[in-house]
């Protein structure tokens, strides 16, 4: 009898836990997905509907009927933190519009003491955009996308800045390894963003325009930022 009662209690506890887990996950998916994609738009809409007050409120928010900001912020932070900690991030944004009309590639220009220079493109940049085959290399492309997106805070004040310095040193090492027979030493390394523009839908398919190149930053070969 006692055993049966215990079994029944056990089943009830298990069922309750399962209902809680399922409810939480459905709630999480319903909250996190729209907030990940349209956070700003939802906030703007709430302001328009007089349901949002910043702290302190802006003049147009002073007549708000209700203030949903505390509840919104709580749900946003809670689900965001849960996603980050458990590795269940949502934010499904593959190939969202507007789609790219040009592809940027990271390159470095090595400048030598004798005044000569050489541009070393990324391994991911096709030498001929009308004729190539790519297998692998997508992870280094992702890293180079991050490096290309320069942070506003540079140097020691940015804890992530050593990544930019390490990238420069790697490119110099890589060049030296490929040209081991040369006695030239680079004195300055310039980070470049090289652009390849795609042909429009009604243009000939081989009309890729390459060549535009933007100087991002200059470094010493050891990775120190130069003025």
């Amino acid at each position, binding site marked *: 009898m006692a055993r049966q009662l215990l079994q029944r209690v056990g089943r009830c506890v298990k069922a309750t836990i399962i209902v809680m887990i399922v409810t939480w996950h459905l709630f999480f998916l319903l909250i996190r997905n729209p907030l990940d994609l349209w956070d700003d738009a939802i906030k703007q809409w709430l302001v328009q509907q007089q349901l949002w007050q910043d702290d302190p409120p802006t003049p147009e928010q002073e007549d708000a009927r209700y203030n949903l900001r505390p509840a919104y912020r709580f749900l946003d932070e*809670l689900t965001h933190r849960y996603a980050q900690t458990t590795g269940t991030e949502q934010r499904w944004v593959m190939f969202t519009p507007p789609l790219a009309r040009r592809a940027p590639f990271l390159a470095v220009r090595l400048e030598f003491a004798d005044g000569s220079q050489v541009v070393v493109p990324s391994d991911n940049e096709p030498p001929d955009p009308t004729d190539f085959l790519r297998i692998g290399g997508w992870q280094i492309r992702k890293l180079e996308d991050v490096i290309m997106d320069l942070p506003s805070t540079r140097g020691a004040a940015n804890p992530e800045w050593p990544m930019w310095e390490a990238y420069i040193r790697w490119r110099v090492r890589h060049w030296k390894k490929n040209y081991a027979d040369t006695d030239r030493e680079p004195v300055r390394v310039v980070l470049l963003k090289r652009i390849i523009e795609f042909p429009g839908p009604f243009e000939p398919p081989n009309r890729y325009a390459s060549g535009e190149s933007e100087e991002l930053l200059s470094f010493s070969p050891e990775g120190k930022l130069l003025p």
Partner: protein
Amino acid sequence: MTGLLYPWWVLVRFWTVPIRAESLAAFRIALATTILLAQFTGLGWNMQLCCTGDDPLIPSSTRDAWLARSGRICLLRGPVSLPLLGEWLPDRIFGSYFKPTRQALENWCPAKWAEAWREWGERPENIQLLFRVYLLSLGMVLIGLRTRLMTLVALLLAATFNNRMVELLNGGDSLFRLGLYYLMLSPAGATWSVDAWLRDRWQSTALPQPWTRPRYIEPWSVRLMQIQIAFMYLFTGLTKLADVRPDAQWGWWRPRGDWLDGNALYWVLNDVALTRWSFAQFPVPLFACKLLTWGTLLFEIFFPLLVLFRWTRGMTLLAGVALHLGILLTMEIGWFSQVTLCWYLLFVPGERLAAWLHRMLGRTPTAPE
């Protein structure tokens, strides 16, 4: 059951009627295999360059502020964001509520130990050791030995290495982690696993072999995974459909952009940073690009609806397989397509998967328990 209660009855059945365990087992095996292969060709391949070399591209010190700020876990960087051991119930969420209770549930790891832990995680030999443990845990998930525990270990280490080298990741890695997370919640070792084989051996030797014996599980974990993948398609489709920004005529949600005018696929296939080969080598007619663009958009937005009904499910899954094989063939974006296709196994009835396996093994299935 008819009338007003019918939808309720369907909903209750959806969440409660036991289902065959083979779909979940096939997902477990396919996912673990895919993650293992991805590690060999991805993070494992770039580990020396980015993490363990003399001058790594991603120095370990660059992680700490970001990990603490974002609440992510990396066992190579100490107890940051780990429940109980580190700070995991921040003021940003809870404000001043339950402050004493929260403080009592945080930072159990003393600062000196945390520092020693961080130093341990900086040494290349320790990083390599942990990576081997990660691969081993994935192998255990694959064969289904101590399945739930090994899935938890694999999930923790996946987060560790993904957050250590986050700059190298894409959506495929998110799907890896999501898969491991849901597997951890589910009875993934119920069949087609060493766990099931051992359980059968201990219980009775008279029962048929676990490979041929039907097993049933509670459906809720599989349902959550199906809903997760449906959400992925729905929201990625919705973001393609509309630009969300102020518009005088439409307000905030105006349908417009490359996906509606049909040129999206043309631009994607022309993106020389992502494609396997040049569009100029194999040009696709514009009308075909438009049809494929609109087809993809419709597939993504209506996937949750189409996959709900038995008579449209098969065709929807076949369309999805074609879509992802197309992406795999034309785009170099890592393991995204392969891992997404693993999730499709959750929509295939366990009976059908078991029948395929029996056909392959040349055996006849036994009657249900």
